């Protein structure tokens, strides 16, 4: 028997009320569904839904975006990137290209794509030109990039990789002593690839209830019901409320591609810093397709605010769930989708952009 979103909501309302419960999600898709369905308003007041580190575009290192812009402007290449990346701003002087979109306007050949297969087609269609694929994303987008490399790509295609793992950011929050949440909704798509077991540590090591959820309100509400019951009963486990797609062990072939083409390293998250074992770099076997090896590094440590969020921007705090988007003083004022200051207002996965699109525009102050 399938339970509808409304029925899950009724069950949640029937649970005994308790003190404030903060439930974190770590997936932009979850936050989008929550906001667009107006779940916050429909849930009892004691439940707070906190958007956490769920936006790969938002944490993509500033220096990587800078490198992509410089490669596109200075090297004889076609740069392809997921559409979201084109408007992510870096910290440069006024006259310089601040985004890939601005670099494009200055004449660089930059093309937005929606999947790695498009990168391959563009490389095949332009055999005389070097094509660089700036690939930022979590496991869900990094696995197809790995598969693309393992299956073989044209010799003129290379990858500027900014892949990140989702769980290490949650581990960092939990180990900080101030996680800022009482329960976790674990990401569905990431779990289809990596397996739900990746999130077992939340329960086992930190005594926090967790449930994997899909993207429909009914799946999210089922996961919320699960973690609330776990809290009420004091019996914590990792629940899977997306079992139609999330299977034990995950997608073995995707994992095999990832471990063949890439290695895990301690990676930088924009505005947050180094998180242990949280990033992917290309394996040596793929050096011929590693843009970081094929092209010069344009990194300029003297650049003001290199690696940081833009001045005044609280995106890093928003990503970590420390503040809500409307608690940033720029939200809806200087920073709007038309003229975003921070990456969380650029990406469709960014909490600021989602809140703005969902009409949650009142400033918290």
């Amino acid at each position, binding site marked *: 028997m399938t339970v509808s979103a409304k029925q899950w909501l009724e069950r949640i309302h029937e649970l005994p009320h308790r003190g404030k419960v903060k439930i974190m999600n770590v997936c932009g898709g979850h936050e989008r569904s929550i906001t667009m369905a107006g779940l916050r308003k429909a849930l009892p007041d004691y439940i707070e839904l906190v958007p956490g580190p769920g936006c790969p575009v938002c944490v993509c290192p500033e220096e990587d975006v800078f490198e992509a812009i410089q490669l596109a402007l200075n090297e004889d290449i076609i740069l392809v990137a997921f559409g979201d990346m084109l408007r992510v701003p870096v910290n440069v002087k006024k006259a310089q290209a601040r985004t890939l979109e601005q670099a494009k306007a200055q004449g660089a050949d930059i093309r937005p794509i929606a999947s790695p297969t498009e990168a391959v087609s563009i490389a095949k269609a332009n055999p005389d030109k070097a094509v660089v694929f700036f690939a930022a994303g979590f496991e*869900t*987008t990094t696995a197809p990039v790995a598969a693309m490399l393992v299956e073989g790509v044209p010799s003129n295609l290379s990858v500027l990789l900014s892949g990140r793992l989702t769980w290490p950011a949650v581990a960092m929050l939990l180990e900080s002593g101030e996680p800022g949440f009482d329960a976790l909704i674990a990401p569905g798509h990431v779990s289809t690839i990596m397996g739900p077991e990746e999130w077992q540590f939340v329960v086992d090591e930190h005594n926090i209830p967790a449930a994997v959820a899909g993207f429909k309100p009914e799946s999210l509400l089922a996961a919320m019901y699960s973690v609330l019951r776990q809290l009420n009963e004091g019996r914590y486990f990792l629940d899977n409320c997306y079992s139609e797609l999330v299977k034990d062990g995950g997608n073995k072939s995707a994992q095999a591609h990832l471990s063949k083409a890439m290695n895990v390293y301690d990676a930088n998250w924009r505005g947050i810093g180094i998180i242990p074992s949280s990033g992917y770099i290309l394996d040596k076997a793929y050096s011929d397709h590693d843009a970081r090896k094929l092209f010069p590094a344009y990194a300029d440590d003297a650049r003001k605010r290199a690696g940081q969020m833009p001045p005044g921007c609280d995106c890093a705090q928003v990503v970590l769930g420390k503040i809500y988007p409307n608690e940033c003083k720029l939200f809806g004022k200087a920073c709007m989708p038309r003229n975003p200051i921070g990456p969380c207002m650029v990406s469709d996965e960014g909490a600021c952009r989602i809140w703005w699109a969902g009409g949650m525009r009142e400033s918290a102050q």
Partner: protein
Amino acid sequence: MQDTHISLAHGNGGRYMRELIEEIFARHLANTDLDVQADAVPITLDSKDILFTTDGFTVQPLEFPGGNIGSLAVHGTTNDLAVAGAIPKYLSLNAFIEEGLEIATLERIIKTLAETAAEIGVKVVAGDTKVLRRGEGGGLYLATTGVGVRNGHILSMKNIKDGDSIIVSGSVGDHGIAVMLAREEFGLRGDIQSDAASVLNLTTAAHIFEGLRFMRDPTRGGIATVCSEMLRATGMGVRLLQEQLPVRDPVQSVCDMLGYDPMYLACEGRVVAIVDPSEASALLERWQALEEGQDAAIIGHIDSSMQHVLMETDIGGERILEELEDDPLPRIC
């Protein structure tokens, strides 16, 4: 015509151009008032109240499931007349044709345009063609100007009152998604048909109601944009019920996949009507009795107690629909 593709010579004012006009445009559009030799034509209108409008068409691709730029050029302009309370009578047509366009494609489009005009009972009586150099146009751009006569009382957003009902004549977002899928940009395919159609039967049916305040066809920006415009014009809020909103399953699926919101997607054959609540169910029945109004639904009402467009979601949540900011980007994870 011997040529297979448009060349710059088809815009030179000479024999090539005459052939193009006679064999493609005049042949399909022929009617008693069309005189391709004349610089201007006299038209007769049996009314004091004449409505006048114009619109341009740049859709890509030129042909899509459920229509093409030709049918759109008629529907777009005649629908604007219809929702304003007029019966469309005459159209002018400007065609900006890009060098290299296949003449067979042009002919298909103009034939559809002529058939669409004939169905609605509107005559194309004036026109012009220009040929653009290769790379300067999207194959074909069209512009139509329409003249119609009033067939009902004057409609205006100023008539809208607190508590008025909001009715939509059919499913929303079909056109936006059909055209997007036809571009094949996202590697997605589907058989979603555009809703592009004349709304004249719908608007004529609505006009018998004294309590009809205002009508609009929700084209670019969709239903949410029509509601934002009403909010700005009246200062009164709009409350919508997601549960009542007709959205076809395949349209919803594509929206879920790409992160689009059907509330903001274009329709080309739907009407949103604002009507006194006492007449809402009668108008709904009239529309549902028409083939083009089968899926009509009362989707909300005007609510002066607030100053925004608010949607009650399926599950009883609430969400504010703001003015469209920019086109959403495809998701990356």
